[in-house]
């Protein structure tokens, strides 16, 4: 039976892909990072139409868990969750930075230049002058990126210090997330036995609210 996968990531812009047995059949990218609620469902519908399949043929859904700023990430996860519910598909979560690592590690020269002191450092914009980051040492046999640290959120300067302290001189890459790569990470994790049904959002930050006492109104 053909294995159709719907892959969704909303950690930055919107990216949606349909894969058949790990092979891309459609991918739709909408770089705008402020319009997830408007665009994801139509992107899913278009990707399915391009791949020439109906929703109920999808057997698995993989969704990027971030890390990402709050609002857009939630829309992607909510969409994946409900699509899986309606299509009767299995739902899996993938760390979005792993998908970027997958893209970067397709460069075989880059892959071969990695060493214990030269890992791959993936960063992504976390807003508020911070970045999300994770370190990778290479790929598993099945092709899943091997994450050795992270994901975390940090100021760029502090990240530099951290790398120095550890004696690391990483290869730094920041590429856009591709839903196809995210789907392929999932497929590889499935073979490795590390595929994860956890789709909890990786916000990495607490809500900003702090409890405050009631204000005085008289001077």
């Amino acid at each position, binding site marked *: 039976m053909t294995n159709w996968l719907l892959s969704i990531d909303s950690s930055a812009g919107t990216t949606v892909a349909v894969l058949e047995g790990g092979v891309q059949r459609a991918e739709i990218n909408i770089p705008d990072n402020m319009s997830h*609620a408007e665009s994801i469902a139509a992107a*899913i519908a278009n990707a399915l139409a391009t791949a020439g399949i109906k929703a109920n043929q999808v057997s698995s859904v993989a969704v990027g868990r971030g890390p990402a700023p709050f609002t857009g990430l939630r829309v992607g996860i909510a*969409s994946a969750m409900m699509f899986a519910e309606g299509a009767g598909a299995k739902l899996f979560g993938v760390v979005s930075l792993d998908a970027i690592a997958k893209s970067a590690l397709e460069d075989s020269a880059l892959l071969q230049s990695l060493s214990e002191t030269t890992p791959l450092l993936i960063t992504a914009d976390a807003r508020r002058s911070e970045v999300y980051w994770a370190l990778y040492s290479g790929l598993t046999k099945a092709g899943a990126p091997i994450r050795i640290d992270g994901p975390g959120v940090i100021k760029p300067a502090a990240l530099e210090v951290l790398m120095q302290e550890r004696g690391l001189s990483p290869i730094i890459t920041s590429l856009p997330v591709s839903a196809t790569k995210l789907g392929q990470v999932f497929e590889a994790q499935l073979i490795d036995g590390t595929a994860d049904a956890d789709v909890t959002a990786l916000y990495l930050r607490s809500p900003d609210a702090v409890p405050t006492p009631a*204000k005085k109104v008289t001077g």
Partner: protein
Amino acid sequence: MTESWSIRTALESDLPEIMALEHESFATDAWSIENMRLELLAHHTVYLVAHENEQLIGYAGLSKVPASTQSDIQTIAVSPNARGRGLGRALMVQLIGDARRLGATEMFLEVRADNPVAQGLYSSLGFEHIDTRKSYYQPEGIDAWIMRLEFARGGVGREPIVLGIESSCDETGVGIVRGTTLLANVISSSMEEHARFGGVVPEIAARAHLEALQPTLREALAKANLSLQDIDAIAVANGPGLGGALMVGVGAAKALAVSLDKPIYAVNHLVGHVGVDILERGKIELPTIALLVSGGHTSLLLVRDLLDDVELLGETIDDAAGEAFDKVARVLGLKYPGGPEIDRAAAGGDPKAIRFPRGLSLPKDMEKNRYNFSFSGLKTAVARWVEVFENKGEEFNKADVAASFREAVVDVLVTKAVNACNDFGVPRLLLGGGVVANSRLRELATERCAANGIELRIPALNLCTDNGAMIAALGAQLVMAGRKPSGLEFGADSTLPVTTVQTP
């Protein structure tokens, strides 16, 4: 043409007449009286008889085993002199309704291959010919058509099953309705998570929606005894409300619609509060004034038509009434949410002890802001009053403060709502929103409406607070009115005006 017959459930005493018609209708293969008696009395069957001039002129029976989602038409017969007047259809429509009520999702029947009149009736009800049984009717050896009606798909008189999703504030609501009938209304609230902040924190609410979505949906489907495949349309509140919170529901609802290949309707949250009355009465009496009061809204609407003519008469220019309750509760050292706490604290207090200000109620305000509200000044007045005592180190009567504050809020709300009824000559007032839980609001509204000859509608509390059922109910109204579904591109609109009942 009005029917001159009456249809009721068959009784054992109908058996002789039924058997007479059975033999007349099915000369060669009639059931025995024993079999017919067992059928009539069985727990898993529904048998109907039609009488005209005290004569039995038709009967029909349905089988629906409790554990199954399938139902079967066991038999149907109409007396020869009563044929061609729609009695067969009437019996079928009623049995279809009974089968749905019993939880069936499809209905099967057999019909003689040489009976095009009956086949035509069943086709017109939505049945499809799915199989043929060779030589089923003996001794003539006539084939039987197996016909099936899938309830989720169509048929005459079919009411749409609509699933509604609500996520505009701190309640994740999933409701399911069939036409104007409530099937499920499940609400998951993140209220407790907001308690230590003294008010709804948008980010916490949005995070909670994402976590509550799937379990709330599953519980609603279980309560309605339906699967997602039975749903005909999805409705979602896309505003007004908290943007980040709304987006979770909007994203979820759209993905559900795409995965099920069903239409989606983006509906106005506030109009949903008005439309919910349909679930209790089967219809809504219009025109009506609606007073919607919650932690996020204080709005006075004039509704002439639920789908086409909703006018915002006024709203709060600062705090919502529910917000004022929360803030004053903090001033009085009471917990969140403030409404019920103040209700409790006010018990035994004198509502006339302190004359707190009524916002926008001075003569000049009653011209310019006749239907608008303001609670910010009231909140400050209470805080100031309390602080004066605290600064002096004196005790004050908390019950009197709570009762007087509550009276000020409720007095303004009801006064302005009743004014609107009188000004527009609309003798109806509908309340909605979480603050309706406040006992004094209900009491005063009841009193003043009675005094002014206004019919007051207060839906059940779980339909007054934010819920998915009201969204589903409004969605169902749009479906039944033949409205075009919304596209997939609509977004969440935190300030969606009430005039936009459906976002295209």
